[in-house]
């Protein structure tokens, strides 16, 4: 697929509490940054997709509340509830339909305004699950137990994901939690829900991201640095967690294989030079890497120990610092895409992966990775 490109990106700094800004203020900042980056004006935008979640925003039809800041007045605007990668997928299909030459996609949330565990608890089935009080952290803790049991991965090993990603964040001025920490710091941090320590979990964050997608004709009209969309796919698993083998991400494997096929990738381990993944928890980075065929099943921890996923390693993963260093829900996946765009343009500054030509970004929607959206992006058409 070589018919569309990402030609503009913009994001706010990720922060624990953007108390000075409303949702729309954050969107305004990210949208203007994306337009400037693409060297476009709002008049060059043919249609708009906003991505949000009503529970996180504390209002119904939340997507409409950011319409003006997205430049949607007098334009066709549609909405996606879920992660930004899924909003971008919809935006891409609108460009590929031929009806629109460009799509502006935004995604935002402010975790600071509510009680995260109550919001994620509300994602559970109200008849069978919700009153038991399970939330995203406890569900993922059970997934971690299952994954670690199956693969033999240890707490000490998953802790290294936290050390790497917080360390990478030191070079990313947009990240919330740059930190110099050790494996011992992770293991000594408060046990939240076995086997997850506090430093195995991503923080509560506020932030917004915007990207501009263009068809192949429009892609070359503006800033002349398009990043080409080579392959995209998403796939969903069952809603009830108990229906799944939680130790594996079968839907991610299916989505990834479809995206690789579209991109003409036969050997992802050798062909992809950088990955930005949805590391909401330390173990997830390893689990997702394995499910995406970027390393062998159960071998992620070993490669991690050998610095394979460090900046400068064979396959740098989350050079930006990932979600462990800042996790604005909804925006998080779109930020992964924007980070890969930066890498392929050579604009990632101190966390640049040298010579990156092909990268992969992943977004997650639903509890413990119910559905996954995978983007393969390339510098060359």
């Amino acid at each position, binding site marked *: 697929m070589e018919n569309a490109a990402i030609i503009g990106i913009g994001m706010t700094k990720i922060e624990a509490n953007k108390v000075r800004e409303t949702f729309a203020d954050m969107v305004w900042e990210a949208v203007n940054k994306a337009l400037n980056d693409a060297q476009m004006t709002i008049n060059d935008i043919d249609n708009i997709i906003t991505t949000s979640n009503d529970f996180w925003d504390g209002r119904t039809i939340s997507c409409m509340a950011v319409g003006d800041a997205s430049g949607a007045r007098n334009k066709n605007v549609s909405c996606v509830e879920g992660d930004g990668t899924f909003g971008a997928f919809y935006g891409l299909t609108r460009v590929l339909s031929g009806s629109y030459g460009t799509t502006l996609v935004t995604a935002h949330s402010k975790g600071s305004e509510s009680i995260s565990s*109550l919001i994620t608890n509300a994602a559970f089935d109200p008849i069978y699950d919700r009153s038991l009080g399970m939330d995203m952290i406890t569900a993922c803790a059970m997934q971690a137990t299952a994954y670690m049991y199956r693969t033999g991965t240890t707490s000490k090993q998953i802790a290294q994901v936290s050390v790497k990603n917080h360390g990478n964040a030191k070079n990313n001025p947009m990240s919330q939690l740059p930190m110099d920490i050790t494996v011992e710091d992770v293991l000594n941090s408060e046990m939240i829900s076995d086997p997850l320590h506090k430093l195995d979990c991503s923080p509560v964050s506020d932030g917004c991201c915007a990207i501009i997608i263009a068809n192949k004709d429009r892609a070359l009209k503006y800033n002349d640095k398009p990043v080409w969309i080579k392959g995209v796919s998403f796939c969903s698993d069952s809603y*009830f967690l108990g229906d799944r083998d939680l130790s594996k991400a079968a839907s991610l494997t299916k989505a990834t294989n479809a995206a690789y096929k579209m991109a003409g990738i036969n050997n992802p381990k050798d062909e992809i030079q950088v990955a930005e993944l949805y590391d909401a928890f330390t173990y997830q980075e390893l689990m997702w890497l394995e499910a995406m065929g970027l390393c062998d099943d159960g071998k992620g921890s070993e490669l991690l120990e050998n610095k394979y996923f460090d900046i400068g390693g064979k396959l740098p993963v989350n050079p930006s610092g990932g979600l462990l260093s800042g996790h604005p829900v909804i925006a998080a996946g779109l930020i992964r895409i924007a980070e890969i765009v930066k890498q392929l343009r050579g604009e990632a500054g101190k966390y640049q992966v040298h010579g990156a030509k092909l990268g992969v970004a992943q977004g997650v929607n639903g509890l413990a990775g119910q559905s996954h959206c995978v983007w393969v992006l390339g510098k060359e058409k």
Partner: protein
Amino acid sequence: MSENMVIDSGNARQPFNYSVGLYGSKFFKELKENKRFLGVKCPKCSKVYIPPRKVCGECFIETREFVEVGPRGKIGSFTILRYAFIDPETGEQKPVPYGYGFIRLDGADTLFQHYINISDENKVKIGAIVEPVFAENRKGTIRDILHFNIVD
């Protein structure tokens, strides 16, 4: 402009009456009256689902046959919750720590989530056999089961 103003939502609530459907009604009636667990069996792949639902997602086919599962089962995965956390039912902080588990009830192909008694943490393991403890006054909700105990 130095003050950062926020508006508090107060104790605003959004009450719902969630319909449990025919399958849910059967499940909760059995639980309440007979302390039995009902699952459903897919007519095509024979997978037994709990909680019962009308559709096998894999086969996209309607399930009609109810089958009894449990009451014993095995832990499929678990966690011990240790951070202070608000009970969505009461709005009060729940005492920690306590255990959650995914339990494969005997005869079921999917896992059922509930509390696990963690009075002996060392016994909480994948594969451990558990059995349910039921509430005295059952109301036809998921809390009619108090928790699962680990059986030696």
